[in-house]
């Protein structure tokens, strides 16, 4: 006990400088590293679970053996390795990437719009993607179910076209008023939604495929999809992180942000483009997974505070962890039947979120 109290930081060290009122960057980096480690553990654990039971340490060693500079003599059958590396791992990595992308985009939109109800789908990305995907389903082209083929490409195009229309509707001269953008996005989204509903109910036998896509699923994920989504998420996240302090200052309001040296219109445009791209890339392959993009940033904000420099990376990691766990539940709980992952995000996520909300109910929410 005596030793412990000796190790405690001296309160006089920086007292009177105000530094105690902002968490030191080192402490925050440790939190990020801790979550990164947790992501690794969750991914490894998720890989062990499935119709074929594979022990945790075998999984761990198979994963390790894939890393460069690691030399482990295989003591496991080749089929086990195939199950882990070719079936489970791409799916889990894709789930993590999609969760990360949606949470990151959600946090960015919430910051950009200064609106607690904002999510990545607010300005018409999802509805545009859905319309593109449904058109893909109805085209008389064999696209092998809804694997990598015509559907993701049409969904991606639909998402981008939709946001481009919203943007050009909302823009006034050189200025992009946020409220107009949201209103145009919601209105156009409703229009796409109506068209999607009509096409869905008249689609006949493809209806189940469409419904499954609309609720989101990671079934049939392959490395080829990971390879497409990964650059979007990594590149997009990097760009967004560069502007994270600008996002903090923009929480004041646009006028004050400009007076504090932020080129508001430029930052808005860049962040809008980037978060739209990562959202579109994520939903194009796995469908419209709701809820993650709105709730994860809120939970992170309640737990670790509103500073975007840490809110953004922590949302990214929390989103990835959350999505891997949710997908794990979706594919195991009623195995061999799969439940659309969008249903599980709500069922798992809402209790967790309400718990955090209750625990911190003294804090101001947004």
């Amino acid at each position, binding site marked *: 006990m005596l030793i412990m109290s000796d190790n405690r930081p001296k309160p006089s060290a920086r007292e009177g400088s105000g530094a105690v009122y*902002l968490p030191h960057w080192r402490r925050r980096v440790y939190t990020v590293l801790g979550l990164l480690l947790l992501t690794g553990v969750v991914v490894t654990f998720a890989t062990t679970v499935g119709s074929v039971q594979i022990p945790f340490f075998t999984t761990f060693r198979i994963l390790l053996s894939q890393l460069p500079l690691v030399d482990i003599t295989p003591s496991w059958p080749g089929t086990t390795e195939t199950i882990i590396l070719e079936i489970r791992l791409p799916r889990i990595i894709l789930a993590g990437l999609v969760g990360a992308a949606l949470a990151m985009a959600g946090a960015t939109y919430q910051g950009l719009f200064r609106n607690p109800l904002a999510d990545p789908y607010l300005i018409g990305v999802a509805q545009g993607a859905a319309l593109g995907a449904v058109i893909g389903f109805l085209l008389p082209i064999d696209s092998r179910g809804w694997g990598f083929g015509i559907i993701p490409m049409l969904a991606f195009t639909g998402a981008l076209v939709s946001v481009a229309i919203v943007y050009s509707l909302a823009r006034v001269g050189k200025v992009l008023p946020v409220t107009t953008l949201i209103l145009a996005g919601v209105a156009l989204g409703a229009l796409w939604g109506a068209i999607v509903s009509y096409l869905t109910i008249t689609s006949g036998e493809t209806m189940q495929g469409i419904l499954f896509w609309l609720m989101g699923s990671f079934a049939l994920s392959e490395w080829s999809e990971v390879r497409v989504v990964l650059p979007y998420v990594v590149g997009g996240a990097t760009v967004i992180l560069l502007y994270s302090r600008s996002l903090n200052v923009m929480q004041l309001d646009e006028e004050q942000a400009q007076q504090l040296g932020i080129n508001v219109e430029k930052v808005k445009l860049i962040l809008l483009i980037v978060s739209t791209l990562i959202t579109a890339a994520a939903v194009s392959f796995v469908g419209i997974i709701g809820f993650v993009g709105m709730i994860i940033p809120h939970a992170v904000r309640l737990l670790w505070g509103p500073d975007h420099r840490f809110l953004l990376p922590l949302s990214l990691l929390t989103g990835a962890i959350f999505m891997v766990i949710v997908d794990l539940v979706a594919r195991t709980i009623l195995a061999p039947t799969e439940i659309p992952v969008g249903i599980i995000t709500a069922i798992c996520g809402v209790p967790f979120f309400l718990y955090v909300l209750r625990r911190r109910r003294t804090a101001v929410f947004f």
Partner: protein
Amino acid sequence: MIKLEVENLSLAYGRNVVMKDLNFQVSPGEMVGLIGPNGTGKSTIIKAMSHVIRPHSGKILLDGKNIAEIPRSELARLIGVVPQMPLLPSTFTVFEIVLMGRNPHLGLFQYESARDMDITWQAMEKTATQSLAERRVGELSGGEIQRIVIARVLTQQPKSILLDEPTANLDINHQVEILDLIKGLCREANLSVVITLHDLNLAAQYCDRLILINKGRVHAQGTPGQVISSSNIGEVYGAEDCVYVHPVNGLPIVLVKEGNNQPAGPEDIPGSNITPV
């Protein structure tokens, strides 16, 4: 130290011109007050001077350089603004809000250094906001928010400060505290200060020069003694015979009484023992 010049400035919202042909200069160490009735465009001038809105015509010069050509972050190191009734995000702590004043001084990936913290802490000491450091903005009063924003502008360490009604929400003791602070900084650090005030008495007491604006045009410009005259106040505000002399320092003061504020009528208002100037 920086010289502010406003040259033939006209401002408009759409086609609605709200300010025409404004000309004035502010030297380092000088405090210039913008006064005039509500809706005459005082706040719009502050917005134009911080390049939040573009002038309809004319220009604003900082040491001879047009502010439209200065990048935002550089401009924010030169000019700091205290907006009227600023909106602040309620989840951030007071310390974090004040610290945002360091933004124009930080690079892309830079985290606030111990020096930034010290500057912030000193600014909070000057504005008596240190005790609020950990509070969230949602819990604060209007006057406290006003002081926080002034602390933020001090943290910004600009060469010139523009203030839009900084005392609007404050009690008289805080009004005096804030204006003393601003005046002191203006003199000590040679800042060029432009302040809008609707309180003519505070304006007369604190400003070196006043610009009286009415209906989008300059009505009078000069020392408080020249601008706050019975005729000017009568013409602009319609309040007749209400300018007196401060008993202590001889500056003009404006005192109104019931029924005073009638559009320049022909009859004298009876019942006054003090003779107006």
